[in-house]
């Protein structure tokens, strides 16, 4: 039987505010446990939350970026459940009246096709603390520094049909929130986390199958693996005559397996009700319009600009425009090199190979955009061949500060025209036999025989001759 996968995503995005959503505690990552958890965050009786305006501004920015209706009136509700990293016994979140209504995100698939994924809504809420289950004499340790960090939870419609689409969608969201500057996008620190709802159904069937939810995936790779495994598990289950049970599963990034969480009889009985501590938040048209006017450039618009302004292919433009920091690096390099195409090639080739090998983001690149741009100008003015440029790049990567210094001190320089002519004359004079053979040969043989002279000159110049020039010179002098 042919099966179809149906996927919906819930994406938690940590907003890059300085302080928490309901208190003035810092949200900085990496502080000593509980040093950024004040009386409000630990739920002391008698405290009152006051919402952070910046969290609303960021949520509105996201809403505008996905063409969504903005909730001019939004209401916080209490989602009740007991867990030690949630000291109030409820999460303050939004349900019936969220800040961001229905919208959509367009993704580009591997084959170049575009697909629209509808967004059901996005709401503001607070993050929980962290539970540490290492052994504290049979107890768990609780760090509440993260409790109260503002999140938007983005809920997609079940429009996704494969793990590739899911990853493309997740990457697009990452690209949007980092371009807006509302999230630092650092997945390793949990700035973006995914819950994946998965079901399968026979192809052609309208009705959805029973879905499972796998929680807390924090990388694109994990998400891809998790979907593949879960789809296989569900299909096998059904084909063996069983039934998929609705359940919540937890993915383990160490073993790359997911297992069902202990099912709770009263699962999803969250008894939501409007939070009596908070009044409805009302945003007026002027507030929303001001945000609309000042929205930074979004990835789709940037991709279009990269094709028109720099003449990049849609493929190159797509890669270089997706992430704000990569786009900025490309533009700075191009500014320094005055050659967009070469800059694009170097960033997508040599530079990204190095970054990947050392697992660095482009912000941590050991070669600055200025130096890369300068290196490219040295290829263009024929000081360097591409081959030599790669060696200079090596030196820069290893800590050398300046392209011209490296060329100077390491003697990386394409052999000058006069010098090259002298060397060619020398080689011709000292190899009379080969010269005679060459001159006697026909066009086709000559093409092979010229390799001998190229080799000799490269040896004499230690590979620093410009290959095009050398070829032309040899053909001219050998006649």
């Amino acid at each position, binding site marked *: 039987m042919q099966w179809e996968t149906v996927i919906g995503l819930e994406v938690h995005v940590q907003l890059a505010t300085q*302080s928490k959503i309901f208190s003035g505690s810092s949200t900085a990552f990496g502080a000593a446990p*509980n040093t950024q958890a004040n009386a409000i965050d630990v739920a002391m009786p008698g405290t009152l939350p006051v919402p952070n305006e910046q969290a609303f501004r960021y949520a509105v920015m996201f809403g505008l970026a996905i063409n969504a209706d903005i909730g001019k009136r939004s209401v916080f509700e209490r989602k009740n459940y007991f867990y030690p990293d949630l000291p109030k016994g409820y999460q303050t979140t939004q349900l019936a009246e969220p800040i961001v209504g229905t919208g959509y995100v367009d993704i580009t698939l591997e084959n170049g096709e575009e697909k629209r994924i509808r967004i059901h809504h996005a709401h503001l809420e607070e993050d929980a603390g962290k539970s540490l*289950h290492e052994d504290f004499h049979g*107890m*768990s340790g609780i760090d509440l520094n993260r409790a109260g960090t503002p999140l938007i939870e983005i809920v997609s419609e079940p429009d996704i049909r494969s793990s590739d689409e899911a990853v493309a969608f997740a990457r697009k969201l990452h690209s949007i929130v980092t371009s807006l500057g509302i999230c630092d996008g650092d997945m390793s620190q949990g700035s973006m986390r995914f819950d994946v709802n998965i079901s399968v159904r026979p192809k052609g069937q309208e009705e959805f199958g029973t879905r499972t939810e796998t929680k807390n995936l924090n990388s694109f790779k994990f998400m891809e693996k998790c979907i593949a495994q879960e789809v296989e598990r569900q299909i096998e289950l059904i084909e063996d005559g069983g039934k998929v049970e609705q359940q919540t599963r937890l993915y383990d990034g160490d073993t790359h397996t997911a297992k069902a969480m202990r099912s709770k009889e009263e699962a999803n009985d969250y008894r939501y009700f*409007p939070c009596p501590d908070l*009044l*409805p938040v009302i945003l007026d048209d002027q507030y929303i319009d001001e945000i609309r006017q000042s929205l930074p450039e979004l990835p789709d618009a940037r991709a279009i600009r990269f094709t028109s302004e720099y003449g990049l292919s849609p493929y190159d433009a797509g890669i270089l425009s997706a992430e704000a920091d990569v786009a900025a690096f490309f533009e700075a390099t191009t500014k320094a090199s005055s050659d967009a195409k070469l800059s694009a090639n170097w960033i997508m080739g040599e530079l990204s190979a190095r970054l990947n090998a050392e697992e660095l983001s482009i912000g941590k690149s050991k070669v600055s955009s200025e130096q890369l741009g300068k290196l490219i100008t040295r290829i263009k003015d024929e000081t360097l061949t591409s081959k030599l440029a790669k060696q200079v790049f090596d030196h820069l990567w290893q800590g050398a500060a300046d392209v011209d210094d490296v060329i100077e001190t390491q003697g990386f320089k394409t052999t000058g025209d006069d010098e090259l002519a002298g060397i060619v004359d020398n080689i011709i004079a000292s190899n009379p036999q080969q010269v005679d053979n060459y001159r006697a040969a026909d066009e086709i043989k000559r093409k092979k025989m010229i390799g001998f002279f190229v080799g000799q000159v490269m040896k004499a110049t230690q590979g620093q001759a410009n290959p095009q020039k050398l070829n032309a010179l040899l053909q001219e002098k050998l006649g």
Partner: protein
Amino acid sequence: MEAKEIEKLAKLARLEITQETIDETAKSITEVLALVDQLQSADTGDIAPMAHPLDAVQVLRKDEVTESDTREQLQAIAPATEDGLYLVPKVID
């Protein structure tokens, strides 16, 4: 309200409720629900639900860090702490 529903509610609210008090609790909650039923009989078809009894609008604060580290004071009243963490009975799910 039936005894079973009372038990479920108690569990959700993490309240300990003895077998003896279940009947009494069921009776008083049933009375409250009767009052709610009475309220429900009012025609509110044209009235938008309120999110809060006060007809007021939430004030927002500026995004500024105004709090300093108060861990020592807060943990002084915690039953168990270690390495700056609050300790709780082991929870794994």
